[in-house]
């Protein structure tokens, strides 16, 4: 019950932050509108050769990219609670470390699902075919959402509010954009860049979402497993880091 009460407070804090909400929900949609407009202006021959910006590929990519802003939500929340000493008040309460992490994480999961759903609904207006695969694609995005939430929790546990803006708002969103196959195929760059992209979870998340939309079900799990492992490891790290922070009271 304590976890639910704390999670409810966190939900209110996030939903009442208009600027963060704008970046989380509206900004990815703006990018989709712009890229769809660019794609529709590309000559037919070139458009057929460049499939990356076609809506069935673009929508899964944007849905993953949009989730990178979730890190900003979780990081800012924890960091602000630390800097205002609100978390100090809660540390003296009966709340335990795992209840804190669950309380910070739980509100962001439905928000991530809503964000992905909004992204796909918008994509329908740009020509994405309506199939049950869209529902599966929303589910498939949950592991990468957990990755971003955990990264935010880690950043918020160690960094101040200003720093998390830089790390999660700029660095992480760029990382997830560059190494994810959303804007360009990393295999075209090749070498260490492609290896690094394949070692990170972002490209695998985008690939699995694209396979869902294209109905290539057999290819989903090998890609998604990467993301699931990352999610489990990063969440475990976030809980450990937060517990240590609680004990050291910093």
């Amino acid at each position, binding site marked *: *019950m304590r976890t639910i009460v704390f999670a409810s407070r966190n939900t209110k*804090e996030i939903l*009442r932050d208009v600027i963060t909400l704008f970046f989380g929900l509206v900004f990815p949609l703006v990018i989709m509108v712009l890229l769809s407009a660019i794609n529709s202006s590309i000559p037919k021959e070139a458009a057929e050769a460049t499939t990356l910006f076609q809506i069935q590929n673009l929508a899964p990519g944007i849905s993953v990219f949009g989730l990178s802003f979730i890190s900003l939500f979780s990081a800012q929340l924890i960091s602000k609670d630390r800097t205002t000493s609100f978390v*100090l*008040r809660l540390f*003296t*309460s009966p709340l335990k470390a795992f209840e804190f992490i669950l309380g910070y994480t739980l509100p962001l999961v439905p928000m991530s699902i809503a964000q992905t759903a909004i992204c796909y609904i918008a994509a329908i207006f740009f020509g994405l075919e309506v199939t049950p695969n869209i529902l599966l694609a929303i589910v498939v995005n949950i592991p990468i959402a957990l990755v971003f939430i955990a990264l935010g929790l880690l950043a918020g546990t160690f960094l101040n509010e200003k720093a998390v803006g830089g790390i999660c708002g700029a660095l992480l969103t760029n990382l997830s954009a560059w190494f994810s196959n959303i804007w360009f195929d990393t295999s075209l760059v090749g070498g260490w860049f492609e290896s690094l992209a394949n070692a990170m979870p972002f490209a695998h998340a985008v690939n699995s979402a694209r396979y869902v939309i294209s109905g290539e079900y057999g290819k989903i799990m090998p890609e998604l497993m990467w993301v699931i492992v990352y999610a489990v490891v990063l969440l475990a790290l976030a809980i450990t880091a937060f517990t240590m922070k609680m004990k050291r009271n910093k």
Partner: protein
Amino acid sequence: MYAIKTTNLTKKYKDKTAVNSLNLTVNKGELYALLGVNGAGKSTTIKMLSCLIPPTSGDALLLDNSIVSDSAKVKQLINVSPQETAVAEKLSVRENLELVARIYGADRKTAKSKVDDMIEKFDMHEIVNSRAKTLSGGWQRRLSIAMALISEPEILFLDEPTLGLDVLARRELWTVIEKLKGKITIILTTHYLEEAEALSDRIGIMAKGELKAENTAENLKRLADTDSFEEAFIRIAGEGVK
């Protein structure tokens, strides 16, 4: 039974001893002020007593419960109003109070009743639906103390409750604290000597991690052979009059 009894309570950070073998007792219902210059060890003491950090050695019993072996029980009996206002900024006054009440186990109905009670006691009718971040410093401090009291603690830690407030807001908060005297045990840390003198039953003065003296303000002045409490503090904190 004492509200607080520490036995050789010690906290060391590598080669630095923040609190050295502290032995103090606080009676039930007493308002005990802990004074000291920066780095004297009072904040570390409060952190250990409120189970935020474990002691390196020694122990403290809060209403007979050990901070070392029974911190979960201690946490149910205490609450803290930290130095910073420590409120949830985007939540309203009512929501802030409800949050703390429910984290300490109150159901929705009980929490609402407790919130109404706090709003009445702290005269917060006019700000009850305002978001915390829009409140003045004085109102935020008042809310912070109300949040600490809503769990009905038996021991309340007030860490620099009037820091940064103007004279009027400070005096208003003094009135609030005075009303609590005798009802619960309060440990107050402050840099304002006149605040400790005006509000406390007893005062402990710490320096270099040790308790240099503890007594009533009047007796401390007598011990230091001066009529001024500020002068008494300087002499004790500087020299360690017992």
